Structure formats: structure tokens, C-alpha cells
């Protein structure tokens, strides 16, 4: 006699099928709930980003001419933020945030805590970039717009990624340092309008567990000069931190400065009124301009 009768086998099979069916029903319901939750989160995030973007546009219209960055009493008129392409960043960020939040559906078994964490984390990141970017919605300047005692400076900073800003100071005046927000980018480039004269690199601010640390390099005597009416190639500043130690130095950065000027500031790309004030005896800038005028290069 068989140990399990055919009748008993049939009952067992039926029960099993029923259990499987109920389990899949429950799973389907859970999956739907999860999808709804994730979709809602994505919608919330998109709404948040859209609202921020709207605010940014309205600020852009409000500060049509220029915006004063830095501290009161310091005249620094910034040109349009070049290297940091905001629209591109927003598009990439949205894609990245969606992909992260969507991953909760499968990778984290719809863990609500994880979903909440990701949502908050993404909003926090976006807020930081938006608030930093508000200061940089400004109009372009032409060399012809400069006053007699003003010149344009090419700021080129290479730093460790967690550096928030680098500042410099006009030597002739007892002014506060002028802060350049580098957005934590390891390579940062822009053209700014400055009063003619002698300046020195002053300090860098680094993110440090929610707060920040300021590294002063006033003792390093890292000077640069601004000639009036010129596009001044003042060299690059290289700043690296290792724990609480840091290294800072000025570098010859003519080639990349030319490349970035051509890319982001085509109105200056003719080479007219370019001057290397870091190493005046360096002939490369003149050679480049001469080759351009000769038609040897584009």
C-alpha cells in the first residue's frame, strides 16, 4: 500500500495551488503599493525641483544686469557661470535621483525608510546646488563695458573635490576677502571683473562633516595682477588637502585658460587684449595669438 493515497495527493496539490495563488495575490498587492509609493516620491521630488527651477528663473529675471557676490563693500561682478552648466546638471541630477529612488522597488524590497532617506538626501543635495547657483545668475560683460580702472581675470582653480570656496584679497585695500564658490568641483573656471591692481590668494574653505574648515594661505605670498582693460591670464591655483594638511601653489595654466575662454566666452576669443600677468616673459600667449592671426590655427 502506498504511503500517500492518490486522494490525499490531490488535496495536497489543491491546497498548495491555493496557497501559491493567495501568496502571489498578496505579492501583487504589495508590489502595487510599492509602485504607488515610489511614484508618489518621484512626483514629490519633481515638483520640488520644478519649484526651485521656477524660483531660479524669477531670480534670473530680477538680477538681469549683475549680482553682487561676496561681501558688502566688495565690487565683484561675476560673469555667467561657465564651467558649471546648470541645465545639464539639473537634467543629470533628475536622472540620477530617479534611478536611485526607482532602485528601491527591487533592490531594497520597497523599504520605506530607505525611500524616505533617498528622497530627503536628493532634495538636500538639490537645495545646496540651487542655493549656491542663485548667486551666479548674472549678465555677461564685454571688455568695452569696463571702467578705466577695471580688468577681467581668468580664475582657474584645481582643488580637492570637497573644497567649497577659495578667496582672494586686493592687497592695496583693507577689504574683506572675495570668495569664489567652487561648488566642490575639482576643476573650476570663470572670468570675473576686478579693479586693476595687485591681489593675493587668501584662503580656502573645505567641507568638514556638516561644518567647514578654513585654510589660510596668506603667508604664501601668492600674488596676481590685474591690468586695466585687459583679459588677464593670472595662472591657476592648485589647492590640495590631506587631512588637516594642505598644499597650495600657483601654476602656469595658459593653455587650459585659452581653451575655456574659447569655449565659454567666445566674445573674447579673438585674442585681443589678452595678457599673461603671472609670467609676463612667457611667450606662449603671444605665439598663440600670432598663429591665430596668421591663420595657422583656428
Amino acid at each position, binding site marked *: 500500500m502506498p504511503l500517500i493515497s492518490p486522494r490525499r495527493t490531490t488535496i495536497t496539490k489543491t491546497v498548495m495551488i491555493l496557497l501559491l495563488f493567495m501568496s502571489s495575490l498578496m505579492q501583487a498587492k504589495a508590489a502595487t503599493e510599492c509602485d504607488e509609493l515610489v511614484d508618489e516620491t518621484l512626483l514629490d521630488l519633481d515638483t520640488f525641483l520644478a519649484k526651485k527651477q521656477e524660483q531660479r528663473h524669477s531670480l534670473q529675471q530680477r538680477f538681469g544686469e549683475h549680482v553682487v557676490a561676496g561681501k558688502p563693500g566688495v565690487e565683484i561682478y561675476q560673469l555667467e557661470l561657465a564651467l558649471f552648466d546648470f541645465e545639464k546638471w539639473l537634467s543629470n541630477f533628475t536622472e540620477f535621483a530617479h534611478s536611485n529612488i526607482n532602485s528601491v522597488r527591487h533592490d531594497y524590497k520597497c523599504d520605506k525608510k530607505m525611500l524616505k532617506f533617498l528622497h530627503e538626501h536628493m532634495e538636500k543635495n538639490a537645495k545646496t546646488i540651487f542655493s549656491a547657483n542663485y548667486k551666479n545668475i548674472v549678465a555677461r560683460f564685454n571688455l568695452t563695458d569696463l571702467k578705466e580702472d577695471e580688468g577681467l581675470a581668468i580664475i582657474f582653480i584645481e582643488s580637492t573635490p570637497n573644497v567649497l570656496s577659495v578667496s582672494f584679497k586686493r592687497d592695496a585695500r583693507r577689504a574683506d576677502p572675495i570668495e569664489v564658490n567652487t561648488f566642490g568641483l575639482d576643476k573650476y573656471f570663470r572670468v570675473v571683473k576686478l579693479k586693476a591692481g595687485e591681489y593675493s590668494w587668501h584662503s580656502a574653505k573645505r567641507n568638514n562633516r556638516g561644518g567647514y574648515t578654513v585654510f589660510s594661505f596668506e603667508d604664501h605670498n601668492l600674488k596676481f595682477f590685474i591690468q586695466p582693460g585687459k583679459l588677464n591670464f593670472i595662472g591657476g591655483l592648485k589647492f590640495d588637502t590631506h587631512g588637516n594638511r594642505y598644499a597650495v*601653489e600657483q*601654476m*602656469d595654466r595658459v593653455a*587650459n585658460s585659452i581653451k575655456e575662454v574659447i569655449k565659454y566666452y567666445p566674445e573674447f576669443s579673438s585674442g585681443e587684449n589678452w595678457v599673461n600677468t603671472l609670467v609676463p616673459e612667457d611667450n606662449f600667449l603671444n605665439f598663440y595669438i600670432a598663429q591665430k592671426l596668421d591663420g595657422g590655427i583656428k
Partner: protein
Amino acid sequence: MFRALYQFYSLLFFVCYFTIGSFVNAQPAGKLYAEDFFRSAVIQDAALSLNGEKVALQIGSEIYMYSNQIDLQRLSFMSLYYQTASVYWLDNDILVLEQVHERTGQYKFLFLEVSVKDGEFKVTDESRIESDGYIIKYHSEKKMLTFAKLDSDDGELYANVYNIEMFKKAKLRPEDFDKINRQSDNIVHWIIGASGKPVVGISHEGGKTAIWASTRSRRKLSKSWEMDNEIYLAPYHYDKDSQHLLAVTDLDSDKQRAVILDLGNRQIEKVLFEKENADVNAIVMDSENSAPIAVTYLKNGLTHYEHLVTDEDSFLKELRSLLPDGQMDLLGSSQNQSKHLLLNTPEQSVASLYSCDTSQNSCEFITSLHPWLEGTKLATTHTLQVPTDDGLMLEAFLTLPNRKSDNVPLVVMPHGGPIGVRDTDYFNPDAQWLAYNGFATLRVNYRGSKGYGNEFLKKGFEQWGRAIEEDIELATDFAIEKFSELLHSNKCIYGSSYGGYSALMGIIRDSSRYRCAVSFAGVTDLSLLFSPYSVRQNAKLREFLVKVVGDPTSDLETLQYYSPLYQYQKITTPLLLIHGTEDNVVDIEHAWRLNLMLDSAGIKHNFLVFDDLGHSFSTTGQVELFYDRVVKFLNLHLE
């Protein structure tokens, strides 16, 4: 029955396992990767205690010890941030690790007293000095050190001498140093006499070298001999009675020679050894009686020991008879010169470390330096002697791949520098890796290279892009004429630093000479070398550059003429330009400038920027990535 079968199959399994296992292990590695050639040797340094009983090995970032009685044991005293440059013993128990900070370049001397307790090595005391310098003498009975601390004043190097109680504190600071020299006068090299006082000092100041010495009647050091110019002078031993100084110097000679100087009469008393086409590198001393035994110089790119005493008296001859095949390099000997540590490199193999006992006529194999390459037949390197039109003799090393062919693609590889640097015939990972990939490589010691005398060195001054390139081209043509498997039409040029510059100038000078060029960390703008931000306000460095490159203030036009950047239009040969963002020697601005000009002119080329890469590679990962691109590029352009 079942148990019997089980036992049979178990036995069969183990027999098969071990047979196959040993067979596999005995075979040379299958496919090799760049990492196999470029990863560090198993042992970076080895040192024998003065009684020859203890051996210290630097393995990776750690120190290991062993002796006849105790098996290999780890002593873990290595800091993560410091790299050990050298390991040596001061006596039978005091081990010194000379270390350099990876980023700051700061020197550190770590002293470990190593004793044997309960059958194990124990560090019973330790201390350190965080300063650049060198140890002149160790006074075993007092555990006292005579230490020369190096400093610089206005770019001029000098050293003061201190007695230091070695284990007074864990960290020995300047306040623990007891200065024993009265004057400094830019003295860099010191010799201490039996009394423990300085007896000889060598200074280099204002372009002149001077020897300071004491005599039997005058204890205070005085300037005994001032030369008319700056010379090379490495002192070895001073006899106060005769005022004879044993030294390696290029005084009154184009080459470095082993000589005895008579300081009393300011003349060379005797030339112990000189070689027509080579500088003497060092004197091997008998540590028991401070007498010279042999001198070393490079012969065919390998260290050669030339006896100063009769062969029969030399332990070097005995060692040679114990390890008759291949190159022998002595790392250290016991005080009585019966026990020795040495490297032996048989033909087409990697080097192995041996411990030899000449009193027992035996050598013990310790390890291969590159065990993963054991069993791999390395490519053969041929030494070429190439005469130039102006009477020089160039030495070049041609490495041919093992795979025979009547058309072996050639990669010409000029070394960096260009002044005071040289190639040798020792294991060269670049040449071996390229040979493994089927390429022959030619490395030329062009004019300006080290080791062939002053005249040869100076002939390289202000010859960037000129006579140096002619030497490289001459040696290349010579090699192709001599080796029928090489063709004029199937070669590229690849180098780093000056070699990268040379690769660029090679294709600028003659666009049809090479099929392609690879320039890594190459100089493209000679005048940029003089930028205050390149020389970092270092007046001495600038002065040196003016001497070897040319003067940018008086001769900018010439510098530009010999700069690839200003000749960019002549670059028509396929080019791979590579630079690291963290290069502190040749700033990446050099590559960016050339890339900008080539891009702007629409001249096709390949440009690769390696983030976090300096002037050379610090990880095998970087090498893998680098050579992946380089080999693909060479394969694309060479047949």
C-alpha cells in the same frame, strides 16, 4: 569492500591532485600581464648583521628577519606614510631603516634594537630621528651614534656632526644632539677618526670643492686643499699619519677614479684604478682593516667588480666560484667577510637573493625577486658600442623578443634626464613587457648620460633636440644595420620626460623616420621649464637648467626653435601624447599647450590625461591602463 574502494579512489585523487598540481606549478606562468613585469620585487632590500647571523629583509612595507636558528619572522614597524629607502645594520643588534615621507619628502631614521628571546626576534628598544642626514659611525659600547645632519643655507648644502645617545628617547630631537664639529663651512661629507672626532670634511662652496683635514699635530680641521672648481669627491678612509685620503674622485681626470690623495702635498699619491670609458662608482672596503678590496663600475650596463688585491685574497673570487653563472651583485658582507648577501641574475632570468658562506663554500637560495616570473624566459639584451663622428662611444641596449621573425618591430626608447641619467642592462620592465608583446626596444646612453666621464656628460649640455637626438638616430641606424630582423621602415619612438620630448623631436626632425611616437610626461616648451612656477623659485635649479638647456633670457629664440610646441606644424606622424595631472616634474601644462596647438590646427593626434598620475607610475593599475593604450597604439602603427 566499500572502504577499500574509498581508500583506493582517495589515494588516486591525491596522487592526481599533487601530480597535476606540481606540474602546473613547475610550468612558467601562462599569459603574462603588464603587472607581472612592473610589480615590485618581493624583496626591496636586504641586510646582514655585522656578525653575519641575522638577516633583515624589506618585504613590501614590512621588515622580516631570520637567522640560522629562527625562521622568517615579521617585525612590523613600517609607517603607512613613509617608504623605506634603505635597511642596514649598525652592529649585530641595531637595525636602521632610512625612510622618506611619501608626500613631504621628509627623512626619518628608525633605529630598532633587535634581540633574540625565547626563540623569537624581539624589538627591545627603538628610537627615531626625523631629519635628513647620514650616519657616520656607531659606537657600539656606548650605544652612541655619530650623525651628520644635512641642512641648507641659501640653497647651499652643509652638514653638522652630532653625537647622539641612541635610545635616550623614542623621538630624538635637535636638543638631544651634541654637536662635535667646530666649523661647518658648507662641509657635506665627514669622516670620523678613531678618537670619535671629525678628521676630514669635504665642502662644495662657490663652485669650488675643498678638503678639510686634521693632522697628527693639528687636531682642528683646516682647509688642506681647495680645488679650482667643483669636483666629484667621495671619501672612504683617512690616514692621519700619512695624511692620505682614499677616495673616488674625478680630480685631474675626465672619469671618476679610485685614488689615494696626499693632502700634505696636495697631489694624487696613487691612482688605484681607472677605466677608459667608465666612471668608478664605489670602492669595496675590508671592514676589518679599512683597506680597499675592489672597485665597482658598470661594464656592459652591469656592475663589475675589479679587484685591487690579488684574486686569491678576495672573497669576491670565492663567491664567483660558488655562483658561476650570470651577474653577481653584492648586497652586504659580515665584518669578517665570510658571510654574504648577494643577488644572482642568470641569463634571461630574474634575479634571486642568496646567502653565501665562503668559509663553508656554500650558498643558500633565499628567494627569487620576481617569483611570478620564475620559469619565464626573459628577452635577451645585446649591448652595442656605437662610435660617433666626434669621437664618442655610445653604449646602447637592444632587447629582442624571444619570438623569431625577419621583421621585428622596433621601439626606440630614449631615457629621461637627459643629463646625469643612464640606462643599464639590469631587468627593465618596460623593455621586457614590450618584448613580451613582440617589440624590440633600443635604449641609448646618448651624450649627457651618466657613467662615461665628465666630457661625455658635458657634451650633452644645451643639446636638447640637437646632438642628443643625432646620437639616438645614429645608434638606431647602427642597430638596424647590425641586426637583420630590424627594418628602417618599421619603428616607432617612445619615451617619458626627456624621452617624451625626444619622441616629439624625433618626428619633428624627420617625419619619415618613425611610424609613430608616444610621448609620456614629455617637455614640449623649453622656456616653460624656467617659469617661476615650474622651478618653484629654486635659484639652484634654474641655474642648472640654464646650464643644461640654455638661457631663456638671452636665447629665447633657440629654445623655441628646439621646443616641439613652437614646431607643432611639423608634427605629421601619428602621435600619442600622455600626461598625468599630478606631474610635479614636467607640469601637465606642457601637454595641454601642445594639445591646444594641434587641436587648433586640426592636426590629428591622440591625447590622454591620467588623473592622479605623477611623473611616473605609483601603482600597477596605472601601468596596466597606460600600457594597454600604448601597446594598442604601437600595434596599430607597426607591422
